[in-house]
């Protein structure tokens, strides 16, 4: 890892009271990025939103194992590549089955994954060693581009 790269792993109890804390950490963290041509405040807000949606999804829908009752988040920034991973130990779901919301029928739920997809370049959900991981990537525009 380069000295300017960022790697942060956080584990908190699976409770919605931690959403603002983790979201705010992400907003602060982006200011550690040394070379970024875009609006850092806007990037921080987007990460706050993406993390809030992803973590709330785990808390509300995915069970966590009794042995490891924590919500784990991993934020990794290497060069111009940003990756966020949110882990769960639930039964999992098929991300491809999650359609965009129907904008005509005013459903109260079902916009979380849509918001994440709008703000990140790629979103993937797959099995990992101890459950499942929602993996989200975004390319950061380097300074001077």
């Amino acid at each position, binding site marked *: 890892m380069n000295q300017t790269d960022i790697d942060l792993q956080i584990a908190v109890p699976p409770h*919605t*009271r931690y*959403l*603002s804390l983790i*979201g705010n950490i992400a907003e602060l963290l982006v200011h550690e990025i040394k070379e970024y041509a875009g609006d850092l405040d806007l990037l921080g*807000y987007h990460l*706050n*939103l993406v993390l*809030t*949606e992803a973590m*709330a999804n785990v*808390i*509300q829908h995915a069970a966590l194992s009794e042995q490891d009752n924590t919500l784990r988040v991993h934020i990794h920034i290497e060069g111009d590549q940003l990756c966020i991973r949110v882990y769960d130990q639930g039964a999992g779901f098929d991300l491809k089955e999650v359609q965009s*919301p129907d*904008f005509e029928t*005013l459903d*109260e*739920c079902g*916009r*979380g994954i*849509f*918001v994440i997809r*709008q703000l990140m370049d790629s979103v993937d959900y797959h099995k990992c060693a101890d459950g499942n991981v929602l993996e989200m990537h975004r390319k950061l525009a380097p300074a001077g581009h």
Partner: protein
Amino acid sequence: MHITTEQRHEKTLLSLQEERLDAHNSGELKEYLQRLLENGTHELIVDLSAVHFIDSSGLGALLSGYKNANLRQGSLILTGLQPRVQSMFELTRLHRVFDIYPDLEAALNHAKAGELA
């Protein structure tokens, strides 16, 4: 969830005194709106000027109140959206659904026009 309410021109003005509206407090807002509407308060103005962050569950709570008010021949209109909150409504296309007014005066003028109609 801290909400203040007051009567303005036959309408009930709800001011949300929270910086964030997310999955931690959106359920409370949904229930609060539900209770008001069930108790006969059908004309609501929701002032979001203190709210600087909203997620999809926050939008869902407001949408629930909006649909519930419409079912009762009432209305739920919004005012005071901060730029980030406004952007979330636009991202999810919900700015086309809600009546959104830039400030309280404009929302109250709408309310008065509704009374005269």
